[in-house]
Every structure is written in C-alpha cells, then in structure tokens.
C-alpha cells in the first residue's frame, strides 16, 4: 500500500465518522439526556461532562407501569404481524404468481397514504362498535401498517423463487396450496424475517393509531412517553429514558436480523 492509498483510506474514515455523527447525534443526545438530571438537561451551554444518574430509569420502570405498556405493545405488534402474515403470505404469493401488479400497487397505496386519513374512520368504527380501548381495534389498525409491508416484501421475495419449483411439486402430485405450504414457505425464511422485523418495528413505533384508539387499558409504549408530559412541565429526563427503553428492542431486533433484512429488501432488485 502506498502513501496515496493510505491518505485515501484515512479520508474515507473521516467522512464515515462525520456522517455517522450527524446521523447519530439526536440519538446520542437522547441517550446522554436520559442519564442527566432535569437541571443538567436544560443547562446552557449544554453539559458534555456530568455525573450520570439512573433516576430517570427508576421513574420509567418504577413510578410508571412500564411493564404493562411493554406487554401491550408486544401483544398488539405480535398479533398485528401474525395476522398480517396469515393473510399477507398467501396474498403476496397470489400477487407474485398471477402477476397482479395493480393490486400490489393498491395495497402499497395504503402504506403511502398519510395514516391520519384512516384515523377518523377508525375512530368512528371503533366507537360505534364499542371497541375503544380494546386489543381488537388496535390490532386491526396496526395491521394497516403491517399488512402492506408483508405483502410488498413477500411478493418481491416470491418473484425471486423460480416458478418451476411449484410446478415440479404439482407434477409430483401436490395441489398448488400444498406446494406453497411445503415447498415455497420453507424457502422463504429470509423474506419472512425481513417482513416480520420491519412490520413489527413500524407497529412498535406507531403513535397515531394507539393515541386515538387506546386508553389506559391498552396503552402502548409510544403513548406512555406522554405520561411524562404534563400541563405544568415536561419531565425531559423521563421522556428520554422512556424513549431509550422503547427503542432498545427495535434496535436489538434490527441488529440480530440486519443480514436478513438487507438480503430481503434487495431481493428481486438485482434480478431484472
């Protein structure tokens, strides 16, 4: 390696570090604030060196019923993703094999439309059917987030699986449904992991539907952050600590499955 190359390398890392800092800044700021006292947080100029405290986390897990919100988020996300798989996998397969591009686009539209446009109908439906503050309403509304992701990712994934595999299974004596179940699904692990990870995270992070459709009983994590905001003051330390606690599962999930997620998202992109 010559001098020129080494210089280029060094420059490359400087740029990478700079971009990472810019992107990660809000996150780092949130992380550090979660360990600060209220006084340190609002101090000017901002304190880079401070004595860290765990009192915010103690509040999150002690004073607030965080476990309940955590369970609510998990149940809502889990059921929404699970049901989306049950409906979305066969739908994606049908879209892929019978080339229903228009239908796929229509489903994607549900994802592209501002979620707020669904809010009023959902509110009216839930209140008329007496479903406010129930898992049913929340899970159904979160499926609006999860289902398009599942359908979209999985139909691209199924496109990359040669159609001859089912044809071969059908000549071998399988029905199309059985070929899908016994041949195509077992091969679709990476795609399903991608779809599950992404749709679960989107559901996990969703604020709007939960804010309108849930009350005390089914409140999810992003709404719980609001508990630290009161008329009189905003408990920034509590907000930050709660935000970190909410983000942690999503980040861990992404780190574990990022290999699959990248693979799943680029599937079909490379194949003309």
């Amino acid at each position, binding site marked *: 390696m010559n001098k020129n190359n080494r210089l280029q390398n060094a420059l490359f890392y400087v740029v990478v570090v700079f971009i990472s800092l810019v992107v990660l800044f809000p996150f780092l700021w949130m992380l550090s604030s979660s360990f600060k006292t209220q006084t340190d947080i609002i101090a000017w100029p901002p304190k880079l060196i401070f004595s860290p405290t765990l009192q915010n986390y103690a509040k999150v897990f002690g004073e607030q019923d965080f476990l309940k919100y955590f369970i609510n988020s998990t149940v809502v996300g889990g059921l929404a993703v699970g049901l989306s798989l049950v409906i979305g996998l066969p739908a994606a397969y049908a879209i892929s094999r019978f080339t229903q591009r228009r239908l796929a686009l229509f489903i994607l539209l549900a994802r592209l439309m501002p979620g707020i446009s669904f809010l009023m109908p959902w509110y009216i439906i839930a209140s008329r059917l007496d479903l406010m503050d129930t898992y049913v309403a929340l899970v159904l509304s979160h499926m609006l987030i999860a289902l398009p992701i599942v359908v979209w990712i999985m139909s691209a994934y199924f496109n990359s699986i040669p159609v001859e595999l089912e*044809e*071969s299974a*059908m*000549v*071998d*004596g399988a029905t199309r449904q*059985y070929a899908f179940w016994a041949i195509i699904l077992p*091969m679709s692990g990476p795609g399903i992991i991608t779809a599950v990870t992404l749709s679960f995270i989107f559901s996990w992070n969703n604020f709007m539907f939960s804010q309108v459709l849930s009350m005390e009983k089914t409140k999810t994590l992003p709404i719980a952050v609001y508990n630290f905001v009161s008329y009189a003051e905003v408990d920034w330390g509590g907000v930050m600590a709660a935000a970190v606690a909410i983000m942690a599962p999503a980040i861990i999930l992404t780190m574990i499955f990022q290999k699959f997620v990248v693979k799943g998202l680029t599937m079909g992109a490379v194949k003309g």
Partner: protein
Amino acid sequence: MASVDIVNVKKSFDRAEILRGVSIHIQDGEFVVLVGPSGCGKSTLLRMIAGLETISSGEIKIGDQLVNDFTPRDRDVAMVFQNYALYPHMTVAGNMAFSLKLRGIDRAEIDRRVARAAEILGLTALLDRRPRHLSGGQRQRVAMGRAIVRDPRVFLFDEPLSNLDAKLRVAMRSEIKDLHQRLKTTMVYVTHDQIEAMTMADRIVVMRDGRVEQTGEPLELYDTPANLFVAGFIGSPAMNFLKGTIEVADRTGFVADTGTFVPLPPSPTHGELAGRPLVLGIRPEHLRIADGAAGGFEVGVKIVEPTGSETQVTATANGADLIALFRERHTVRQGDQLHLTPTHFHLFDGQNGARLASVSI
C-alpha cells in the same frame, strides 16, 4: 406406461397464437424429441401434456384417458425441468421421496424405491446431501431420480441438458438414452439442439411457429427432409443452399442466381423442373473435389478447419458461402481455387420450400 395422443391442439395467449393445430401420436414406450428454434411452441406443448398450461382447443390423451381438464397431479406424468427445480430445503433422498409421500406410500416402500433409483443413477453416496452441495450433473441426476421413483406413465423432459457444460451434456445424453432403454417408459423430450434430437430420439418432431414441420426417425429427417426448414435445421454443419433454376438446354445443370453453374448429370426430373424457381440443397459431406475443371463448379477456399477425422472447408462461390466436409485428407489452403461437385443433392420449391426431388449421383 402409456401412449400419448395430441389431436389438433391449439394454444393462444391473449392474441398471440403459440400452437396452431398440432397433432402427434406417441406410442407406448417411444422416445420422442420435440425440436425447433426458440418460440416454436415445443415447451408450451410439453407443459400442456404435463397440465401446467391450459389447452385452448384440441385434445390430449394419455393412454385412452382424455386429460384436457386434469390437474398435473392427476395425470401421472413426471417432468424434469431445465433448471432442475430441486427443492433446496430437502436432501437428495427427500427430493426423491416427496412425490411418494404425497401418494401415501409406506415408509419401507419409499426407502426401497429411492435406494433403487439412487443406484440406477449413481447417487447412493449423495442421498443425505442438499441440492446446493451438488454439481450441475449431480443435480440433473437427482431431477431424473425424482421422476424415476414414481414409475409414471410418461416422462417429460424440458431442455434438461442446456445448463450443463458441453462434455457433461454428451455424457448425460447417453445416460438418458440408456435409461430409456432400461425403463422402457414413454418419454417426450424438448430441446432446441438438433444433435440431441438426432442422437437420442426414436422419432423426432420438428416444429416451427406453432406447427409441426415434419415427424420421422432421425435419419429419415436427415435423408429426406420435407422442406427447406427441416433440411436447414437438421444436420451440423447445416446444408448448403443455392437459389436458382435448372437448365437443360445446351448444358445440364443448376444455375444459381449468383451466376454459379453446378453441372448435374441428366435426369428425367430436370425437364419437369426446368425454369421454375428452385433451391439446390447439398449437405457438406456430399461435396467432393471434382476430377477436372469441367466436372464441377469453382470455389475459393476461405477457411480450412481440420479435426483429424475430417476436414471442414468453408469456400465461396460468387459471393455465396458453402461448407464442404471431407473424410479423406486433402492438402487445401486458404486462397486455393477448387472445383467441387455434389454426390447427392436435394431440390426444393423456391416458393413454398417443399422438397421436390433428392438425387444421388
């Protein structure tokens, strides 16, 4: 085992007609190869026999059963695909056992049949491997094994060798032929490679543009092609063609549009054909070097390709390229002038391409 009857079968996708009325009778135990250029409808026809493609009109019978409306699973046929279509998450044994499990055959019988097929194909040592750990040739064998274990009424092959390298292709060619001789099951084989068709088939069906151009035994097609298309498609290097007319006045011979005069011995057919637009067809191995300048037509040698067993000479006669194949050794060099004469030739109608006469000299 069963015969296959294809009666006036048509297929169209939207407005495009893929098959324009195809009728083929395949006998019980016969090895029939469907051959033709890409887009001729041969794969579509095979998929229609398998039940993977619907039939727009006409009839397909397997044995004496009309199978038009049967799903693939009810037709009792086995198919080997071009890309093998092995189930990647199953072992070799699992791939072969899949169809038997679906039929509810008991475990011991499945094991026995898989073991037997593996033995026939030399796969015994690979039974626990997954497809991704196999070479192309081995995958091809597994695909065949999957078909063999079933003991189906008909085997269907869709260009099974085109993903293999040249050497393996030749080896697998004889293996499939050997397999047919042992199993004696009806086989329908699709390929675009006329060499595969010639070497493997009991009978060849040459297709073009959704129609059958000619059906016959390999050498029958080679010796008496029905028309220009079959004549040009079967045989490698391909038959030489010259457009022109027969002349019987002062000299007897074929006058090509390019001006080349090919002297031909007198024959009663010449008189009938004289003056009509014709195409003269001469296979490369049916050209020999004439004894004297008077006995042949002059060509200039462009390329000489000796393989040891034979020598292929590409030459040009008034701008038209010809290929000649010599079994005997000649000292021919690029730029030489030669006089060639046919030992056997065909005459085709210049308008519709039908073969009118074949003459040996």
